[in-house]
């Protein structure tokens, strides 16, 4: 669905330049990846593809991605100093550049690591005008664009899981806007990305934690736009 145009699509947003797709978009992808990882990473590796790889340096795509992981918004003037800020926080970072035309022109894979979570791989794309999508988490397909609060779950694939989660949301009178499910193989692991109207409460997160064999639960909050 194409969103209705508002006045603030043409005047604003306020961003760190120079490019809405290659700078602001990069910040948002990094930001969402940081939220999905959910803890301070010890090490972050960014694999930039295609146009992100070719023109990224000139657009500050690298600094945008890293600044986003550090939790910066698109208008934070520290983005330019993201390398320095990451070093101060003892976060090791690395950028790799590649061509892969099976991927989107502005694509990035972000690998976040620390002692507790070990390793997560999150893929994102910048689709233009600062709009982005997280397309994969640990190999599972998602579509997280920051327009809604989004519940991210990875769990053991077994009957009744989707029902349990959606019933919990219904019980809290939360409307589901869109839903994305994926799995690696029957009976192994599966994923759910649920965008909701309104907010996902701590109560919901705590109830989800009580369900056996849910390996990852994240509430990725709507982006400030």
């Amino acid at each position, binding site marked *: 669905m194409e969103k*209705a*145009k*508002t*006045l*603030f*699509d*043409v*005047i*604003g*947003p*306020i*961003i*760190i*330049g*120079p*490019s*809405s797709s290659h*700078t*602001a978009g990069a910040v948002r992808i990094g930001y969402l990846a940081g939220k999905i990882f959910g803890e301070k990473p010890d090490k972050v590796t960014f694999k930039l593809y295609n*146009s992100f790889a*070719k*023109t990224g*340096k*000139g*657009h*500050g795509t690298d*600094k945008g991605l890293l600044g986003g992981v550090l939790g910066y918004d698109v*208008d934070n*003037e520290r*983005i*330019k100093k993201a390398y320095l800020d990451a070093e101060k926080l003892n976060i090791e970072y690395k*950028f790799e*550049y590649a061509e892969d035309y099976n991927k989107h022109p502005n694509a990035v894979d972000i690998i976040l690591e620390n002692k507790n979570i070990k390793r997560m791989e999150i893929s994102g794309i910048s689709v*233009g*005008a*600062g709009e982005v999508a997280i397309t994969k988490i640990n190999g599972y397909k998602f579509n997280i664009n920051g327009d809604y609060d989004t519940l991210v779950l990875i769990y053991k694939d077994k009957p009744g899981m989707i029902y349990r989660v959606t019933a919990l949301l219904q019980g809290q009178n939360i409307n589901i806007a869109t839903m994305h499910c994926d799995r690696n193989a029957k009976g192994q692991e599966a994923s759910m990305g649920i965008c909701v109207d309104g907010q996902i409460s701590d109560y919901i997160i705590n109830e989800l934690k009580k369900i056996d064999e849910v390996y990852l639960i994240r509430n990725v909050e709507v982006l400030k736009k």
Partner: protein
Amino acid sequence: MIKQKNFADILEDTKTKNKKLYEICQILESQDSEISVQEVRSKVKNILDAMKAAVKSGLKSKEKSQSGMCGDDCAKLLEMYKKGQSLFSELHKNVLTYSLATIEQNARMGKIAACPTAGSCGIVPSAIIAVAQELNADEEKEINALITAGLIGKIVSNKLALAGAVAGCQSECGVAAAMAAAAVTELYDGTNEQILESAALTLKNIMGLVCDPVAGLVEVPCVKRNAFLGIYALTGAELALAGIKSVIPIDEVVDAMKQVGEMMSPRLKESSEAGLATTPTGLKITEDLSQKWQEENSK
């Protein structure tokens, strides 16, 4: 309230309700976003403040962009003005330097307000801020002007994506210039008709403008283009305020732009595969930067 899909509808609406374009626009925005008109205006003020801050920081800086291709042009103009040399009036000098100051901030990873895009962010602010200074207009009038600019961009974007990759630079710096012309006409108390004429006249004369950035960066020709089109927007306003009309009505001008954008080769739409980007000098810069960054990447 009817949904305004084109300029003829909205002009009709201003007549039946006896309101200025910005008033119609802020009411519509308030209804669509379910916030009060005052909140709409306060959001516009935030953007205006960011625009003023970008001009202020930009005027003080000579810092080069990541590529080194730009960053000190505004300083060169200011240096010349300090010596009392210029072909221009105070107003024109301010438009030129404010526009350059803003777009250079963008190129050096400073904070800017996209208007309508990052690569065209200098044009609207330069016109509004410089003209408001010239007229001693208060902040409310500046907000009225910025909403007027926004209305132009919004209605154009109903038909035409405001992205160089889709419709060329006519849809970025070109539309920004039309937005700026409309804002200036509003600041000079032009009628609703004059405001739309100023936008139409401006759009007609940038039709077909290509997007051919050297090395794919928002610098060459974008930075200097912002300066040129800031001044150019004043021409649109000046003509409209004299009662000069576009023979082709604005809605038809936008349709024509859309058609031209579709006919334009993809090589001239932000892909850096033709035009300035593939001149011998453009290619050499691209090659040199690519080598420099590869070396940095492998470190």
